């Protein structure tokens, strides 16, 4: 059961081979056994989870008034601790919100509740989603289940590691510059960042609102599609939520790869890639070529500017979004202060960690008088060039394939003191959110150290079903996504 896909679990629940209470108990016990070592969950409430499981069992039995059961009814799902929940505290990985319980549920939480899924707990994350290693969490780093001396990636590192260690069948995450895809790659799981606007940001604590997008992490592309069917949908409370007819993200899982044009951007296969990553990604490309797809060389010429653009725009938006944490309406307040301004300054100095403060300061600077045009407007102009690169590329291909990250999981502490090195590692995941495009990562092999390698598939706006279809075909022929890590034996 621990290694089963969502559709297998769904069938087992429907056939009464297992109850939701038993299934939830199984994963709670797994969390109990492994969390001390991997630190993937910040908050678990067994009584709450089991209560929801009992309701799901009644729903599957046709009792109660929650409506008929769906594919996710009774399946435990872990949630990144950035999604507000009324029943579990929501910390966003920060001291600022260490004691915060939200008076409302995020739209994503409402959707999973309506589907009858069980809230398994809240997963660890980089503080306010600012980080690529999960080392900035106030609650301590998450450890990679493939090698506990290494990072799981970030910022959705807890969600990725929980799925990798089979502590949760699937999890939610958010992606601003790679925070779903990069940890998915580094922990050997599948993760999807949808087109901007498909998943409501209501109740998803804001980092950089023009980039933030919720999405799923799971073992397989097919599971990602099932998760998307529950997560995506219009929500009037998010002004950027898209009003579109609902779609079935499973609809292209049986698609034929014949004639599909796969773009290989030269910039994604340059010198900075580790040999083990290159080898695994090139082998995956050959697999697609051998199964009917045609590859075309493309260029995304402004790729090298994506990281600098991101580190103007994301901190600028963050400095504005995080102004709300002032010690007045919720969250931490400093004990000692002399006046109101001093209370703000001390509250924020104490409540925020080093990386969050760094980004707020950068954002404040680039938005300040005299620098706005030189930094902020300039970055918005280059953002358009990056988006245009993709428009040109998708005129010549259907999907773009490359590595998710230039490296496999790095040791804890290796980049923690050098933010610029940490930032540059996200070079392949930052362009898609700048353009608002969807991207996913699936496992495509291991390097010589036995660490998983992620294959990134990017598609045009609203091409999620096609991307998931291509990924699913690959996963039917390979078993990288079914391998479980040595640090968390089944």
């Amino acid at each position, binding site marked *: 059961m621990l290694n089963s896909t969502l559709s297998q679990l769904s069938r087992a629940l429907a056939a009464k081979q297992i109850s939701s209470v038993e299934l939830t108990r199984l994963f709670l016990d797994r969390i109990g056994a492994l969390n001390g070592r991997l630190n993937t969950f910040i908050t678990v409430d067994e009584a709450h989870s089991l209560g929801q499981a009992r309701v799901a069992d009644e729903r599957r039995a046709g009792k109660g008034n929650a409506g008929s059961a769906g594919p996710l009814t009774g399946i435990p799902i872990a949630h990144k601790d950035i999604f507000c929940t009324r029943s579990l505290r929501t910390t966003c990985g920060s001291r600022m919100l260490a004691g915060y319980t939200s008076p409302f549920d995020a739209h994503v939480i409402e959707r999973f509740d309506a589907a009858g899924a069980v809230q398994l707990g809240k997963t660890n994350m980089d503080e306010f989603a600012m980080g690529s290693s999960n080392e900035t969490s106030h609650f301590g780093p998450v450890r990679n289940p493939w090698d506990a001396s290494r990072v799981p990636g970030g910022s959705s590192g807890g969600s990725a590691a929980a799925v990798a260690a089979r502590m949760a069948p699937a999890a939610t995450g958010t992606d601003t510059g790679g925070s779903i895809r990069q940890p998915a790659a580094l922990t050997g799981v599948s993760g999807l960042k949808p087109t901007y606007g498909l998943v409501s940001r209501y109740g998803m604590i804001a980092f950089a609102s023009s980039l933030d997008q919720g999405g799923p992490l799971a073992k397989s592309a097919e599971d990602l599609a099932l998760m998307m069917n529950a997560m995506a949908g219009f929500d009037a409370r998010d002004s950027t939520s898209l009003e579109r007819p609902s779609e079935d993200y499973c609809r292209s899982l049986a698609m034929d790869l014949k004639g599909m044009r796969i773009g290989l951007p030269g910039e994604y296969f340059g010198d900075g890639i580790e040999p083990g990553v290159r080898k695994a990604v090139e082998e995956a490309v050959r697999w697609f070529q051998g199964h009917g797809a045609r590859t075309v060389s493309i260029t995304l010429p402004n790729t090298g500017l994506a990281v600098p653009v991101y580190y103007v725009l994301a901190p600028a938006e963050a400095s504005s979004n995080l102004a709300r944490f002032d010690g007045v309406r919720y969250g931490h307040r400093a004990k000692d202060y002399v006046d109101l301004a001093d209370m703000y300054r001390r509250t924020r100095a104490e409540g925020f960690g080093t990386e969050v403060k760094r980004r707020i300061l950068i954002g*404040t600077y680039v938005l300040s008088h005299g620098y706005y045009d030189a930094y902020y*407007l300039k970055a918005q102009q280059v*953002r358009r060039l990056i988006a245009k690169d993709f428009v040109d590329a998708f005129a010549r291909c259907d999907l773009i394939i490359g590595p998710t990250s230039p490296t496999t999981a790095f040791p804890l502490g290796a980049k923690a003191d050098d933010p610029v090195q940490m930032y540059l590692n996200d070079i392949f995941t930052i362009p898609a959110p700048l353009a*608002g495009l969807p991207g996913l990562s699936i496992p495509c092999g291991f390097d010589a150290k036995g660490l998983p390698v992620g294959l990134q598939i990017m598609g045009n706006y609203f091409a999620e079903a096609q991307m998931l279809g291509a990924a699913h075909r690959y996963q039917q022929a390979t078993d990288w996504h079914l391998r479980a890590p040595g640090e968390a034996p089944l």
Partner: protein
Amino acid sequence: MSLTPDQLQRIALLARIEVGAAELPGVTDCLNGVLGLIDQLQALDTRGIEPMSHPLDAHLPPPQRLRPDEVTEPDRRDAYQKGAPAVEGGLYLVPKVLE
């Protein structure tokens, strides 16, 4: 462009974040490293390019909606104030601003 410790203190004041004297040199150095990274943008000629502020603005008609100007939220003041550090009589308490 690079920041001096004095300029950093000014930014910290605007951001309402206290930066102590002991951490000031380290924070300044670190921020200058990041500014070095983003200064790469200055080399590019971007004259005539329209700034992109919404990730889908090149692709879709403006997706920002306006809703009818009607009351849609119930009064949940008590629920919202439950998590506040200090409240009294339905008001948020802050240090005295005016003597």
